[in-house]
């Protein structure tokens, strides 16, 4: 027991010292040590870093516009090179990475601080003792070829490098990128997608793309996660689509909708109409709430029931003093503007005003307590 205490006494300060010496940039992060380090107490001499935790440790807050336009990759230049260095059109690629998982597609390891490039981690010499990560040449080429051979199928050196004995400084496409002439064309989003399925009851699965992007306000990458160039640039696109399994096809929807119990949400014998809040709930959000995202009201994620049509839940209590009726498009006349809200609006959703409290013979909306104005 004594020895254990002694050990503890000795190791504790060491531990504390070690803890104190953590790089300041690390402290800003809510990181667990063992995410990157394989040993208990990493030291400067013995970092014991795990292989790059792709996706987990990326802190680049730069937009493609802020990034360098063209980078000449010449870290490995030597006399005997067969090829000239590549002029890498960084900005174009940064923009394109937006279709996929962003900067981390290439900058797969970037601790807080500056944006680091391949040569900061990958050794330039191929003959080395640490072979857990590729050398610099391998890292560059792996990064490029992973996508490039997917969508072009080409692996020739000349598609990126100019030959050393040619007059060309670089490959033509790189020159164009330098002038900023290359951008990825806008991707046209479909409004509605109709799938013919083999399902007996409900042959047609309707996917209303418009609803998801416009009405529900989802961003592309909410569904299109981790897209590779290959998704669109595959040589045999039809084959790649047909090779997806039933589970693959349902997986995207299953992120939000439970596909096991909600078949009829998409599957039907005819094309389903788009989402209509009023048809589903009776509350016409298009009237006054069209600009709100779903989660402004449906605060509990993925739970869309249980909201009462009670305006005061969000808006607080309206009184004749704090509510300018004109926003509804109806300018109350003088007599009516002095009345309490409840005189006409007896329901909590302020939907159907009644005139019966004062007027026996008047009915809304035939008779109006003021004049309509433009909103």
């Amino acid at each position: 027991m004594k020895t254990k205490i002694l050990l503890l006494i000795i190791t504790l300060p060491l531990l504390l010292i070690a803890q104190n010496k953590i790089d300041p940039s690390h402290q800003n992060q809510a990181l667990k040590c063992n995410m990157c380090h394989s040993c208990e107490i990493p030291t400067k001499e013995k970092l014991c870093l795990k292989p790059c935790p792709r996706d987990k440790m990326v802190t680049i807050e730069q937009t493609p516009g802020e990034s360098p336009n063209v980078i000449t990759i010449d870290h490995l230049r030597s006399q005997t090179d067969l090829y000239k260095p590549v002029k890498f059109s960084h900005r174009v690629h940064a923009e394109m990475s937006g279709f996929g998982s962003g900067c981390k597609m290439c900058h797969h390891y970037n601790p807080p601080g500056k944006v680091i490039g391949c040569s900061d981690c990958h050794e330039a010499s191929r003959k080395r003792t640490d072979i857990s990560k590729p050398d610099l040449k391998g890292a560059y080429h792996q990064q490029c070829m992973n996508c490039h051979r997917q969508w072009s199928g080409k692996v020739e050196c000349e598609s990126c490098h100019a030959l050393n004995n040619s007059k060309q400084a670089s490959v033509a496409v790189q020159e164009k990128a330098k002038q900023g002439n290359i951008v990825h064309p806008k991707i046209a989003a479909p409004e509605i997608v109709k799938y013919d399925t083999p399902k007996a009851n409900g042959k047609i699965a309707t996917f209303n793309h418009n609803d998801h992007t416009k009405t529900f306000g989802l961003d592309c990458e909410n569904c299109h996660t981790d897209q590779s160039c290959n998704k669109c640039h595959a040589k045999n696109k039809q084959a790649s689509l047909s090779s997806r399994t039933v589970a693959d096809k349902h997986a995207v929807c299953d992120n939000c909708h439970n596909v096991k119990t909600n078949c009829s949400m998409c599957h039907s014998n005819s094309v389903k109409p788009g989402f209509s809040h009023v048809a589903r709930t009776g509350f016409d959000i298009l009237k006054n709430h069209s600009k709100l995202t779903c989660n402004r009201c449906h605060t509990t994620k993925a739970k869309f029931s249980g909201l009462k049509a009670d305006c005061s839940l969000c808006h607080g209590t309206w009184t004749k003093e704090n509510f300018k009726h004109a926003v509804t498009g109806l300018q109350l006349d003088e007599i009516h503007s002095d009345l309490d809200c409840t005189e006409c609006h007896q329901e909590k959703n302020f939907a159907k005003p009644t005139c019966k409290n004062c007027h026996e013979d008047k009915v809304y909306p035939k008779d109006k307590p003021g004049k309509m104005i433009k909103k």
Partner: protein
Amino acid sequence: MAKHSRRDFLKTSALIGSATLGLSSTAKAAPENVLSEDRMGVLVDTTVCIGCRKCEWACKSAHDLPTASIETYDDRSVFSNVRRPDDKALTVVNEYQSITSDKLPINVKVQCMHCDHPACVSACIVGAFSKKENGSVVWDTDKCIGCRYCMVACPFQIPAFEFEKALKPDIKKCDFCINRTASGKIPACTEICPVEAITYGRREDLIRTAKEKIKNYPHRYINRIFGEYEVGGTSWLYLSSKEFEQLDFPKLGKDPAPGVSEAIQHGIFSYFVPPVALYALLGGIMWINKNKKHNETDTEN
């Protein structure tokens, strides 16, 4: 039985050598054919290989084999046939379709695997093959008699013979760039590979790296390193996204290829006891029969 293979053989040959001839070339070469802990190897990650075939060019250039210019290696039509290394190309890259067609084709580089317990070393009649300290299995032109037993023995069918040569035909196979590594360089194919799909390093480190890769990317790799255990382990190791047997790798067990035959061999020749015993036995029978005959003729007379 299989355990006392090489050591025993060395002992035996030393014994025979000193007993009869006084010297034996194999006994002298003892430090060879012993596995070093620091032996080198190469990890081939077939999921990284792009099939650019630059390794084929580099190999031929490094071994003074006739080759076309490097640009001609962009020709991918060669992949329509499965090719094998031969006397004119010590390594070749083949292409296989992936399981799902939207994925990329799988390219597999083929060359000598440099076994830890090589069948060729065990089989060669004159000991022209040897496993060097750095892991390479190399062939000695000064010894070879061209019997081609190495080709029969090799579980990977790698050694190739120059059938067209009438004089001094060679056995050709990857020599792990023994001349380059001796002068501190790394093998030509591992140097030129643009994507470093072939990583040169200590075999132990390579296995560790490979296991880490499998652990980190379980969807990318099948959980197996070809060459870790096959025929007792090989210096060249492979990672793949598809079962190796579907990529034309031979289906092999974990026992070293020369195990059974060496066991039989050493059983028959354990310190020459069985042959000498048989000799004594036959001599005894002969002597008894002779005496019997003698007695018979004596009594007849």
